[in-house]
């Protein structure tokens, strides 16, 4: 009887710790999800302030310039429908180019500027970041739908 109680206690202890750990993992998981938004989402104001997220799209042609200090970079990310201004401090990836796909991680500042903590471009010459492609696809789908609707009226 005593042995059985002991075992029961052990099993209960084990289950409690597993439950605890699961809770911890899921909690950490929920807090650290990084969502993805397109420039259109940002303009449409559905993006939470002060939360880290990713944006993707193309670097708008002619939008890149370096600040006086040589470190701050300003550019605009477009999904072909709208563009969002981005500011970043530091070295851009080697394959960062105007007109090319880009993904940035950061958060939205007052005034609608996206402050990037990390900028990612392609890894090689034959590939577009999937999130950049997604942003453009969504924007174009949206554009097509708008045209259809306006044609219907």
């Amino acid at each position, binding site marked *: 009887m005593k042995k059985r109680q002991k075992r029961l206690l052990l099993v209960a202890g084990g289950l409690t710790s597993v439950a605890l750990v699961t809770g911890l993992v899921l909690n950490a998981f929920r807090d650290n999800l990084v969502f993805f938004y397109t420039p259109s989402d940002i303009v449409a104001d559905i993006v939470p302030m002060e939360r880290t997220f990713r944006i993707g799209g193309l670097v708008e042609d002619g939008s890149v310039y370096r600040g006086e200090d040589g470190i701050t970079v300003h550019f605009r990310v477009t999904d072909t429908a709208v563009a969002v201004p981005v500011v970043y401090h530091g070295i851009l990836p080697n394959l960062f180019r105007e007109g090319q796909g880009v993904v940035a991680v950061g958060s939205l500042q007052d005034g609608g500027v996206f402050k990037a903590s990390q900028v990612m471009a392609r890894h090689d010459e034959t590939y577009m970041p*999937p999130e950049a492609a997604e942003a453009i696809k969504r924007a174009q789908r949206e554009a097509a739908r708008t045209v259809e609707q306006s044609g219907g009226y």
Partner: protein
Amino acid sequence: MIAEIGLFALILAFLLAIAQGTLPLIGAARGDVALMAVGRSAAYGQLVFLGIAYAMLTYAFVTDDFSIAYVANHSNSLLPLQYKISGVWGGHEGSLLLWILILGFWSAAVATFSRSLPREVLARVLGVMGLVAIGFIGFTLFTSSPFERLLPAALEGRDLNPMLQDPGLIFHPPMLYMGYVGFSVAFAFAIAALIGGRLDAAWARWSRPWTAVAWAFLTFGIGLGSWWAYYVLGWGGWWFWDPVENASFMPWLMGTALLHSLAVTEKRGGFKNWTVMLAILTFSLVLLAAFLVRSGVLTSVHAFAVDPDRGLYLLAFMAVVVASSLTLFAWRAGKVGLGGGFQLVSRESALLTNNVLLAVSAAAVLLGTLYPLFLDAFGLGKISVGPPYFEAVFLPLMLPLLLLLGFGPRLRWKQDSPTEQLWRLRWIFGVSLVFGMIWPFFVGNWSFLAGIGAFLGLWIIGSSLKDLVDRLRPRRESTQTLGTRMRRLGRSYAGMQFAHIGVGLAVIGITFVLGYDDERDVRMAVGETVEVGGYAFRLERLEEVQGPNFDADQATVVVYRDGQRITTLQPQMRYYFSQQQPMAHTSLHRGLVRDLYVNMGEELPGNAWVMRVYYKPYMNWVWAAVVLMTIGGLLAASDRRYRIRVRREDEVLEDDAKLAAADAVKPEGNAEPKPAG
């Protein structure tokens, strides 16, 4: 002609794999000795033909045969010879060929070193290895042949990705694959044992050295990859929780659990089901890693070109392997007896806790890696899970594991007294706590986390050394010399010590490099100085230099500390002739307690560049830890008791009975001498 010979050899290897995957298993079921004997010769034959196929592809690379599509895509006539040879595994098809070559090598190694295994067991193990080989060689032949011709032939190759033109990358894939594929041996032993219906201490003893070797290679391979990311990619980090890194980390965590669980099965006959389960899960995670990297679901430096057929094939292969082995497990596991019982405080329960924590860690990594992929696959949105998640999960899981590591190896099997162990380690505990908390003052601003990390590292190293000293202390009546006593501890014990001390070093290194690294992106003009981490970096000059297959801008940066010249760093921005993309080449100065390194970013007007300057404290401790763990794994695998003649079955059974009888009577001594055989 070369390509055709290679392809033909590959087809022959495939046919031999089919023979190896079927005949010995049938033979073992029927008790047919001739059929069982096929396994060994098929394994050798397979290795020979895979070797021929591999040699043909290498020959094509060395002789610049651009009529083969794979060579044309991954080589260039200007490529230095060593990169032509390593370029063979620079892309999907070739690296897969390397993978199956290594699989053939492991099969042949089992055939060679397991001569003394009972015939049926060896036949089943080789049979299962053959089934795995069918899957992978078939994958190569049907979806990813490296021997496809390019018509008309290219005049010049597209060149190897410059990121891959580095010594670190020459060795990273072979080491990693040795580890990945090595776990197929542990898997084969587990499945063979399930088929045979006999899981016992002998089975654990057979599969333990193979697991240790695979684990050592995987550890080293992951370490090399991390080292490569650290200094070739110049991202300043060495671990990014990138899905591909996670893909290799999950089998490592599971494999580590397997290694520890096997100890219980071998020594105490316990955890049998769990050990088999871990062997199956570890190999499943290896297959998952292959799927993640090769299917194109991920986009990263490691990901190969997207091809849905490949992903589908691997997914199907993985499903078949996992489903059939779990079915077999469900069917057979019930027959496996439980091992000896144990108390709450005992070596068994310490190892059980180790296993649970490692398995949960692997599950947490799995969740963070797969969840975004699932959402994306079902069109439910794009999310990503960043390093903060993994760090938040790992910290609380590793704390108890590392604390326990100090006690574990000292605990007696079956039952031990917690107060006694605590009392014996009180000095180690106290001293490491005090020094751990003080140490961060010498590195930078004191923080509690850095103190905890340093404490745990010191605690692990200290308690490991204390255990060694205790075990070497002569018993009163003993007249053995120190050398004899040391030898008597055995390589298995030495291996454990190496690996555990490695863990201690890793904890210290990781804590300090995460807590105190300094990274600055700055504009530097010639003659300007930047302070980072207490070091002054002065840009002396900028010039243009030439390499064998690239031109480069080179910066010369002299580093000073307190007016003393420490070193000169010469990072480059390289422009490879065959690529449009420039490629930064890092310059690094290593030291015992810190690395310094400089990377070039982009050119600015006014004879200046954007430069990234790093100060990385204690980075080399992490690399040293990887080396120690690798040595540990190899040492443990080379223990004498794995090499002696394997006893006949009845002897083993007799032994099991003795073990059970011994459990019932006496608890073992603390400084239990390792059994010599």
